[in-house]
Protein backbone atom coordinates (compact mmCIF):
# COMPACT_ATOMS: atom_id res chain seq x y z
CA UNK A 1 0.00 0.00 0.00
CA UNK A 2 1.28 3.42 -0.91
CA UNK A 3 1.49 6.14 1.61
CA UNK A 4 -0.79 8.95 0.56
CA UNK A 5 1.05 12.17 -0.13
CA UNK A 6 -1.29 14.03 2.13
CA UNK A 7 -2.49 12.61 5.39
CA UNK A 8 -6.19 11.93 5.18
CA UNK A 9 -8.31 14.06 7.50
CA UNK A 10 -8.79 11.99 10.61
CA UNK A 11 -12.20 13.38 11.37
CA UNK A 12 -14.07 12.21 8.33
CA UNK A 13 -17.72 11.57 8.78
CA UNK A 14 -17.27 8.80 11.27
CA UNK A 15 -20.19 7.70 13.37
CA UNK A 16 -19.16 8.49 16.95
CA UNK A 17 -20.85 5.27 17.99
CA UNK A 18 -18.12 3.40 16.17
CA UNK A 19 -15.58 5.11 18.38
CA UNK A 20 -17.14 3.91 21.62
CA UNK A 21 -14.93 0.81 21.91
CA UNK A 22 -11.86 3.05 22.12
CA UNK A 23 -13.19 4.71 25.25
CA UNK A 24 -14.34 1.68 27.20
CA UNK A 25 -11.09 1.31 29.14
CA UNK A 26 -11.04 4.96 30.17
CA UNK A 27 -14.74 4.89 31.07
CA UNK A 28 -14.16 1.89 33.27
CA UNK A 29 -11.13 3.48 34.95
CA UNK A 30 -13.18 6.62 35.63
CA UNK A 31 -16.11 4.53 36.90
CA UNK A 32 -13.74 2.67 39.23
CA UNK A 33 -12.43 5.94 40.60
CA UNK A 34 -15.98 6.98 41.48
CA UNK A 35 -17.37 3.69 42.75
CA UNK A 36 -14.20 1.99 44.02
CA UNK A 37 -15.94 -1.28 43.27
CA UNK A 38 -15.58 -3.40 40.17
CA UNK A 39 -19.17 -4.61 39.91
CA UNK A 40 -20.66 -1.14 40.44
CA UNK A 41 -18.18 0.32 37.99
CA UNK A 42 -19.20 -2.19 35.33
CA UNK A 43 -22.90 -1.46 35.86
CA UNK A 44 -22.16 2.23 35.56
CA UNK A 45 -20.24 1.76 32.32
CA UNK A 46 -23.06 -0.38 30.96
CA UNK A 47 -25.66 2.33 31.70
CA UNK A 48 -23.35 4.93 30.20
CA UNK A 49 -22.98 2.98 26.96
CA UNK A 50 -26.74 2.55 26.59
CA UNK A 51 -27.39 6.23 27.29
CA UNK A 52 -24.64 7.37 24.97
CA UNK A 53 -25.90 5.12 22.21
CA UNK A 54 -29.49 6.31 22.41
CA UNK A 55 -28.53 9.97 22.80
CA UNK A 56 -25.79 10.06 20.22
CA UNK A 57 -27.67 12.71 18.23
CA UNK A 58 -27.00 15.05 21.16
CA UNK A 59 -23.26 14.63 20.78
CA UNK A 60 -21.76 17.57 18.96
CA UNK A 61 -19.47 16.16 16.32
CA UNK A 62 -15.94 17.42 16.46
CA UNK A 63 -16.06 17.94 20.23
CA UNK A 64 -14.37 15.68 22.72
CA UNK A 65 -16.24 12.37 22.74
CA UNK A 66 -14.44 11.10 25.81
CA UNK A 67 -15.42 14.20 27.78
CA UNK A 68 -19.03 13.73 26.65
CA UNK A 69 -19.00 10.08 27.74
CA UNK A 70 -17.38 10.92 31.07
CA UNK A 71 -20.10 13.53 31.63
CA UNK A 72 -22.84 10.95 31.05
CA UNK A 73 -21.07 8.53 33.36
CA UNK A 74 -20.64 10.94 36.26
CA UNK A 75 -24.19 12.31 35.91
CA UNK A 76 -25.51 8.75 35.99
CA UNK A 77 -23.38 7.98 39.02
CA UNK A 78 -24.62 10.99 41.00
CA UNK A 79 -28.24 10.55 40.03
CA UNK A 80 -28.17 6.88 41.06
CA UNK A 81 -26.56 7.92 44.28
CA UNK A 82 -29.21 10.55 44.98
CA UNK A 83 -31.92 7.97 44.37
CA UNK A 84 -30.65 5.57 46.97
CA UNK A 85 -29.46 8.30 49.27
CA UNK A 86 -29.39 6.91 52.77
CA UNK A 87 -25.74 7.55 53.46
CA UNK A 88 -24.35 10.43 55.44
CA UNK A 89 -23.79 13.45 53.25
CA UNK A 90 -20.08 14.04 53.44
CA UNK A 91 -18.87 15.83 50.32
CA UNK A 92 -15.61 16.88 51.85
CA UNK A 93 -14.91 13.49 53.36
CA UNK A 94 -14.53 14.96 56.84
CA UNK A 95 -16.22 12.05 58.53
CA UNK A 96 -14.38 9.47 56.45
CA UNK A 97 -11.02 11.06 57.12
CA UNK A 98 -11.62 11.00 60.84
CA UNK A 99 -11.90 7.22 60.64
CA UNK A 100 -8.73 6.86 58.66
CA UNK A 101 -5.89 5.04 60.27
CA UNK A 102 -2.70 6.91 59.51
CA UNK A 103 0.02 5.02 57.69
CA UNK A 104 2.86 3.67 59.74
CA UNK A 105 5.49 6.29 59.39
CA UNK A 106 8.88 5.39 58.10
CA UNK A 107 9.20 8.26 55.68
CA UNK A 108 8.20 6.22 52.67
CA UNK A 109 4.61 5.79 51.80
CA UNK A 110 3.49 2.62 50.11
CA UNK A 111 1.14 2.70 47.14
CA UNK A 112 -1.33 0.71 49.19
CA UNK A 113 -1.50 3.53 51.74
CA UNK A 114 -2.19 6.01 48.98
CA UNK A 115 -4.98 3.83 47.59
CA UNK A 116 -6.44 3.40 51.06
CA UNK A 117 -6.49 7.17 51.55
CA UNK A 118 -7.92 7.74 48.07
CA UNK A 119 -10.74 5.31 48.92
CA UNK A 120 -11.62 7.46 51.92
CA UNK A 121 -12.19 10.58 49.86
CA UNK A 122 -15.69 11.57 48.87
CA UNK A 123 -16.65 10.63 45.30
CA UNK A 124 -16.63 14.36 44.47
CA UNK A 125 -13.01 14.58 45.54
CA UNK A 126 -12.02 11.38 43.78
CA UNK A 127 -13.75 12.65 40.69
CA UNK A 128 -12.00 15.99 40.52
CA UNK A 129 -8.59 14.46 41.21
CA UNK A 130 -9.12 11.76 38.60
CA UNK A 131 -10.19 14.27 35.97
CA UNK A 132 -7.51 16.90 36.45
CA UNK A 133 -4.79 14.90 38.18
CA UNK A 134 -4.84 11.54 36.42
CA UNK A 135 -6.75 11.55 33.15
CA UNK A 136 -5.26 14.78 31.91
CA UNK A 137 -8.34 16.94 31.41
CA UNK A 138 -7.88 20.67 31.82
CA UNK A 139 -9.61 22.56 34.62
CA UNK A 140 -11.87 24.07 31.94
CA UNK A 141 -12.84 20.67 30.55
CA UNK A 142 -13.44 19.31 34.03
CA UNK A 143 -15.60 22.34 34.84
CA UNK A 144 -17.71 21.62 31.77
CA UNK A 145 -18.12 17.98 32.71
CA UNK A 146 -18.95 18.75 36.32
CA UNK A 147 -21.21 21.73 35.44
CA UNK A 148 -19.42 24.00 37.87
CA UNK A 149 -17.20 27.06 37.54
CA UNK A 150 -13.49 26.64 36.85
CA UNK A 151 -12.74 28.20 40.23
CA UNK A 152 -14.85 25.55 41.92
CA UNK A 153 -12.87 22.81 40.19
CA UNK A 154 -9.62 24.36 41.38
CA UNK A 155 -10.71 24.82 44.95
CA UNK A 156 -12.26 21.37 45.10
CA UNK A 157 -9.07 19.83 43.73
CA UNK A 158 -7.03 21.76 46.28
CA UNK A 159 -9.24 20.62 49.12
CA UNK A 160 -9.07 17.03 47.91
CA UNK A 161 -5.27 17.16 47.75
CA UNK A 162 -5.13 18.75 51.18
CA UNK A 163 -7.34 15.98 52.53
CA UNK A 164 -5.07 13.33 51.07
CA UNK A 165 -1.96 15.07 52.36
CA UNK A 166 -3.53 15.29 55.78
CA UNK A 167 -4.50 11.64 55.88
CA UNK A 168 -1.10 10.60 54.65
CA UNK A 169 0.67 13.11 56.85
CA UNK A 170 2.57 14.47 53.90
CA UNK A 171 4.92 17.24 54.68
CA UNK A 172 7.69 18.95 52.88
CA UNK A 173 10.76 16.83 52.40
CA UNK A 174 8.91 13.56 52.49
CA UNK A 175 8.95 11.48 49.41
CA UNK A 176 5.95 9.26 49.02
CA UNK A 177 7.16 7.67 45.82
CA UNK A 178 8.10 4.20 46.95
CA UNK A 179 10.41 3.61 44.00
CA UNK A 180 12.34 6.77 44.65
CA UNK A 181 15.48 6.87 42.56
CA UNK A 182 16.16 10.55 42.57
CA UNK A 183 13.46 11.61 40.11
CA UNK A 184 11.24 13.04 42.74
CA UNK A 185 14.20 14.73 44.36
CA UNK A 186 14.67 16.51 41.07
CA UNK A 187 11.05 17.54 41.17
CA UNK A 188 11.50 19.07 44.58
CA UNK A 189 14.77 20.65 43.58
CA UNK A 190 12.98 22.61 40.91
CA UNK A 191 11.35 24.58 43.70
CA UNK A 192 8.14 26.33 42.87
CA UNK A 193 9.00 27.17 39.28
CA UNK A 194 6.47 24.83 37.76
CA UNK A 195 3.69 25.82 40.13
CA UNK A 196 0.68 26.66 38.03
Amino acid at each position, binding site marked *: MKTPSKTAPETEIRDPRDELPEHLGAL*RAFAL*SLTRNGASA*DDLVQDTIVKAWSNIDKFEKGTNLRAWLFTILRNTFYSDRRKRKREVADPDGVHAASLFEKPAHDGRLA*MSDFVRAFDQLSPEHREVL*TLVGASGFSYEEAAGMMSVAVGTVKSRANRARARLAEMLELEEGEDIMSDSDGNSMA*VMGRSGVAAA
Partner: protein
Amino acid sequence: MYSDMADEKSKSSIKEQINANLKRVYEEALQEEVPDRFKDLLAQLKAKESGK
Protein backbone atom coordinates in the same frame (compact mmCIF):
# COMPACT_ATOMS: atom_id res chain seq x y z
CA MET B 1 8.35 28.72 60.73
CA TYR B 2 8.22 28.38 56.97
CA SER B 3 8.53 31.41 54.79
CA ASP B 4 5.73 31.85 52.25
CA MET B 5 8.04 30.68 49.52
CA ALA B 6 9.00 27.52 51.33
CA ASP B 7 5.33 26.94 51.93
CA GLU B 8 4.52 27.34 48.25
CA LYS B 9 7.38 25.03 47.38
CA SER B 10 6.12 22.42 49.77
CA LYS B 11 2.60 22.65 48.38
CA SER B 12 3.77 22.23 44.82
CA SER B 13 5.88 19.19 45.60
CA ILE B 14 3.03 17.56 47.49
CA LYS B 15 0.80 18.27 44.52
CA GLU B 16 3.28 16.61 42.18
CA GLN B 17 3.60 13.59 44.42
CA ILE B 18 -0.15 13.23 44.70
CA ASN B 19 -0.58 13.58 40.94
CA ALA B 20 2.07 10.94 40.32
CA ASN B 21 0.22 8.52 42.59
CA LEU B 22 -3.15 9.39 41.07
CA LYS B 23 -1.75 8.62 37.64
CA ARG B 24 -0.49 5.27 38.86
CA VAL B 25 -3.86 4.33 40.31
CA TYR B 26 -5.58 5.41 37.10
CA GLU B 27 -3.06 3.66 34.85
CA GLU B 28 -3.53 0.47 36.81
CA ALA B 29 -7.28 0.65 36.24
CA LEU B 30 -6.64 1.30 32.54
CA GLN B 31 -4.47 -1.80 32.33
CA GLU B 32 -7.35 -4.00 33.37
CA GLU B 33 -9.02 -5.99 30.65
CA VAL B 34 -12.27 -4.48 29.39
CA PRO B 35 -15.00 -7.02 30.14
CA ASP B 36 -16.53 -8.73 27.10
CA ARG B 37 -20.01 -7.71 28.20
CA PHE B 38 -19.37 -4.19 26.91
CA LYS B 39 -18.32 -5.32 23.48
CA ASP B 40 -21.30 -7.69 23.42
CA LEU B 41 -23.57 -4.84 24.45
CA LEU B 42 -22.26 -2.61 21.66
CA ALA B 43 -22.75 -5.42 19.16
CA GLN B 44 -26.33 -5.88 20.38
CA LEU B 45 -27.08 -2.18 20.13
CA LYS B 46 -25.66 -2.10 16.66
CA ALA B 47 -27.66 -5.15 15.57
CA LYS B 48 -30.85 -3.60 16.93
CA GLU B 49 -30.10 -0.40 15.06
CA SER B 50 -29.60 -2.06 11.69
CA GLY B 51 -32.69 -4.22 12.21
CA LYS B 52 -34.91 -1.15 12.34
